């Protein structure tokens, strides 16, 4: 409610400075009144004009009046002024005639809007690279050559083919492909044809996903082949997914594609490519998917340059590693693909980080412009006999066109407990809501049934209505006679009416037994605990402090800085040591941050908003009250067990090499031959994950040798070079500088033999087909990064880790910094190996997520939660085990289970498990559910 959505709106100008920015915007006309439109769809049904549908990448059609897709927010129709017959030729006007709520307004004008804001966040995203310009790929010349986005729509159930994997060229939607090829790096890593020299980061992974999904969709065996240069699956769990795809039979072909052409004789597509050994090959496919890269649109470019923001050579916003969401203009922040190609979790992380950064300077004005609700007093109805009001919705013609609403209403009136029945055209419309409030008051209704659509979208709305009418908001039950009835039985109106009656009868039976539920408010302790004093922990602590909240920072070691102390430079050549020193100085100077060195978390009690944590350090033990906790315990470089590590002084890890650089060791000057081996201990059977940072780190170190002395022989032995995103520029520079790259596989690992002063490294060059040998002065191993042992901490905070030890976020895509446990957040390498900039982004993100808790005065607990009847409880602990949220504990005194309202999410797992029905989920208790079931069967 504190977000004002301005659609069809563009920013035209910006002025002022951080804290006081004036933005001028122009809002284009929608030609549909959003207050009146009820998204019934009649207009689009009647609209005669068909247009290629951009949502379906042009593979389907939409009308000139449309919603972009069925789950769109706001779910309001829009007229496309370039295609509407009325707006272009003053003909037609059908939509105005059929609209039941008179929402069409052809006279709508564009509006100028001026906003005063404290800061701006840019998140305009990307556009997919358009491969039409690439002659050799024949895109646009054959319908079965699609872009990756197009293929998403092909697979999607809401797509133009209804989720059936059939060839777009077959208009009957019958012919299924038997062979599909994916072409990687279309419009990425390609300076010659596309100008996009960077790696788009996400295409490898989405191609793997699409191939797996395609196999899943296909009834017959499907041959899926991915043509690639390097598989860049560096994210969390990505390599595991890749290996699974290989096991499922997806072919991965390391190659360069020459051409894709329609074969006029066979009717399918012929592809020519050069394989790993340099041989030219030809293969036929039914369908080719172009894994198109991400790029910045002309609009975004104009927007940023108009604001005076610096962009890099590829039009991404220039950021530095230490401020990954700040632009060159103070007060303007950016996130998502606008700052560089990245995947969904990274975008979500950056978005939260930008939220933290954009509000740091505005902290003193917190809650000055936000609105809070004033609620009328609640009427006591718990003891009253049920007086049920039933509101039956026509939903325009959505329900009323199929179901006999008057019959359903008449039927409802006869049901026990029902004292009032009303039919509405649109129960959810504002005027009906107002009337409902009045009816509830005047008729003294105390239980409400709304027979309309799904509670998923509308229950909250009706709960608000109940609150306005002075009723407890849990006294409503919805019967979904639209999605579950009129929509699915549109060809059987009589049966649909019978089913609607059944659904209403069930809802009334439940409403009869509804009891008011109450929420209690618990105050939030406005402070945070941060565990881990590395770059991530310190960044998060500073961010929270600048937002005005005290922080306790717990560090296990006697000094702050973590891994940051051992790192030399970022890939953008920024010195890390001064930055870490600066962070430590800021922390020490910050009066709101209490640092505890040599300290560990002993135990944690409480829950979101009210944690009580015992922290022990050498000399003392203290109890800390805090509202949120952030875990940033980092990770550690492993010690290799192969390649003569520890047996010869020439063999070292990346961090050990960094130490030599920082000490300016003379060995570096003398080194004539330097070899790097990648993936040491990573991406094998025991440790299937990629350590993500080593490719970039190794190439950066390799470049340092070349810069010192261009005659040094530098060799990098790799499996896939994973310089994702703009890091690709570093890889390109390295190749230009003459660093030699050799690819090896797990079954042909390099062989290291220690010599007197040097170690000899033997490996295969696939292109020459020969074994080569280098006597290396320095052999640097890119050792796997290991998770730290967080067992104790995980138990204390009730959070989990995966099998490799990385802490497990609530959702890998959409909640990358939250734990499943409320009020606890994670950031930095404890989540997964990551470079400095991503650690900082995640740290700020964790701070932003923590702020959403801290900035509240209180949290509401209760409502739909489980309660355990101590009389029935046998104390077996079954419910404790099934509770995913650790909300149930055993009361040692009474030996019964007890639910903590603040932790309970109301999932009902406990109620389903207990054989003696001791737990009941409020609002869904057994009495109510049995009544509903019995009512369903009572015909």
């Amino acid at each position, binding site marked *: 409610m504190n977000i004002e959505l301005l659609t069809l709106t563009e920013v035209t100008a910006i002025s002022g400075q951080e804290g006081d920015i004036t933005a001028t915007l122009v809002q284009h006309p929608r030609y549909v009144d959003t207050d009146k439109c009820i998204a019934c769809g009649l207009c689009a049904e009647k609209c005669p004009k068909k247009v290629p549908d951009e949502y379906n990448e042009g593979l389907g059609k939409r009308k000139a009046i449309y919603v972009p897709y069925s789950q769109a927010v706001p779910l309001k129709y829009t007229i496309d002024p370039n295609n509407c017959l009325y707006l272009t030729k003053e003909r037609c006007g059908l939509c105005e005639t059929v609209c039941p709520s008179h929402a069409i307004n052809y006279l709508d004008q564009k509006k100028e809007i001026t906003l005063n804001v404290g800061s701006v966040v840019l998140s305009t995203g990307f556009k997919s690279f358009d491969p039409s310009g690439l002659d050799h790929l024949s895109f646009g010349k054959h319908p079965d050559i699609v872009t990756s986005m197009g293929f998403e729509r092909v697979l*999607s*159930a809401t797509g133009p083919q*209804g*989720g059936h994997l059939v060839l777009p060229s077959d208009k009957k939607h019958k012919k299924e492909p038997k062979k599909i090829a994916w072409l990687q790096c279309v419009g990425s890593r390609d300076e010659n044809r596309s100008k996009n020299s960077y790696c788009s980061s996400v295409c490898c992974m989405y191609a793997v996903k699409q191939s797996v999904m395609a196999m899943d969709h296909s009834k017959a065996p499907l041959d899926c082949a991915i043509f690639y240069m390097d598989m860049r699956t560096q994210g969390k769990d990505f390599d595991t997914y890749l290996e699974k795809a290989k096991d499922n039979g997806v072919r991965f072909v390391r190659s360069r594609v020459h051409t894709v052409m329609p074969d006029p004789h066979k009717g399918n597509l012929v592809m020519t490519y050069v394989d790993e050994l340099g041989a030219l090959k030809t293969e036929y496919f039914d369908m080719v998917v172009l894994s198109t890269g991400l790029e910045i649109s002309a609009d975004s470019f104009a927007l940023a340059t108009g604001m005076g923001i610096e962009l890099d050579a590829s039009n991404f916003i220039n950021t530095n590693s230490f401020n990954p969401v700040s632009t060159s203009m103070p007060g303007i922040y950016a996130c998502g693909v606008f700052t560089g190609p990245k995947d969904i979790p990274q975008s979500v992380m950056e978005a939260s980080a930008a939220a933290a950064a954009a509000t740091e300077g505005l902290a003193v004005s917190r809650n000055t412009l936000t609105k809070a609700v004033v609620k009328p007093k609640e009427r006591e109805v718990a003891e009253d006999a049920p007086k049920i009001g039933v509101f039956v919705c026509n939903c325009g013609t959505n329900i009323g066109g199929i179901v006999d609403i008057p019959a359903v209403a008449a039927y409802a009136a006869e049901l026990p407990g029902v004292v009032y029945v009303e039919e509405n055209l649109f129960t959810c419309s504002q005027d009906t809501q107002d009337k409902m409030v009045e009816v509830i008051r005047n008729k003294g209704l105390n239980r409400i049934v709304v027979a309309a659509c799904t509670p998923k979208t509308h229950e909250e709305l009706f709960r608000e209505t109940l609150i306005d009418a002075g009723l407890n908001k849990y006294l409503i039950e919805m019967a979904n006679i639209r999605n579950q009835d009129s929509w699915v039985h549109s060809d059987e109106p009589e049966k649909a009416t019978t089913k609607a009656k059944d659904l209403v009868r069930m809802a009334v*039976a439940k409403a009869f037994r509804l009891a008011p539920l109450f929420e209690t408010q618990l105050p939030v302790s406005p402070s945070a605990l941060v565990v881990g004093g590395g770059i991530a922990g310190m960044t998060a602590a500073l961010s929270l402090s600048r937002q005005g909240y005290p922080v306790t920072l717990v560090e296990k070691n006697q000094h702050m800085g973590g891994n940051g102390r051992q790192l030399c430079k970022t890939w953008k050549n920024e010195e890390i040591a001064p930055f870490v020193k600066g962070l430590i100085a800021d922390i020490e100077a910050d009066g709101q941050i209490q640092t505890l060195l040599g300290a560990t978390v002993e135990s944690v009690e409480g829950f979101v908003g009210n944690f009580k944590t015992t922290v022990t350090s050498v000399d003392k033990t203290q109890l800390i009250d805090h509202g949120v906790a952030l875990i940033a315990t980092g990770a550690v470089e492993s010690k290799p067990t192969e390649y003569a590590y520890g047996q010869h002084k020439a063999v070292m890890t990346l961090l050990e090499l960094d130490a030599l650089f920082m000490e300016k060791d003379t060995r570096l000057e003398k080194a004539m031959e330097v070899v790097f081996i990648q993936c040491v201990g990573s991406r094998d059977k025991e440790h299937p994950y990629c350590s993500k940072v080593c490719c970039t780190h190794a190439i950066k170190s390799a470049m340092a040798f070349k810069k010192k002395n261009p005659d040094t022989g530098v060799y990098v032995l790799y499996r896939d070079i994973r310089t994702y995103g703009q890091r690709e520029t570093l890889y390109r520079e390295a190749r230009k500088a003459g660093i030699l790259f050799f690819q090896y596989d797990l079954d042909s690992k390099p062989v290291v033999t220690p010599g007197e002063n040097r170690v000899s490294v033997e490996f295969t060059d696939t292109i020459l087909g020969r074994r080569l040998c280098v006597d290396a002065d320095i052999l640097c191993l890119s050792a796997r990064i290991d998770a730290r042992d967080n067992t104790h901490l995980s138990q204390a905070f009730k959070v989990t880790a995966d099998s490799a030890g990385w802490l497990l976020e609530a959702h890998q895509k959409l909640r990358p910094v939250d734990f499943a446990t409320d009020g606890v957040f994670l950031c930095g390498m404890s989540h997964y190996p990551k470079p400095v900039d991503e650690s900082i982004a995640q740290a700020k993100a964790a701070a932003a997520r923590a702020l959403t808790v801290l900035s509240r005065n209180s949290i509401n607990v209760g409502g739909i939660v489980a309660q355990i009847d101590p009389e029935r409880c046998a104390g077996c602990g079954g419910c404790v085990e099934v509770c995913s949220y650790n909300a149930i504990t055993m009361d040692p005194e009474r030996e019964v289970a007890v639910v903590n309202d603040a932790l309970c999410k109301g999932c009902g797992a406990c109620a389903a498990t207990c054989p003696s029905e001791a737990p009941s989920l409020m609002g869904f208790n057994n009495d109510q559910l049995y*009544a509903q079931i*019995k*009512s369903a069967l*009572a015909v």
Partner: protein
Amino acid sequence: MTIKRITFVQEMLKFMGLEGRLHLEWISSAEAQKFARVVTDFTEKITHLGPSPIAGQTRSISMEPHENKRRKHEYHKAG
């Protein structure tokens, strides 16, 4: 876990002679077609299996709780 629980009940029903009357399928909210297909297939399958042999045995349940009704039970004699 759900798979295990359902497998258990499926096995139990099989032992009881009520095989094939329970089915588990994962369907996302975006897979309307799949939902329709699965429900249609299952309905067909159940129709093919015929009415539940228990149906004749259960008493009709009324709206009023705790109502006592005595019903004579019929059962198939073992063959």
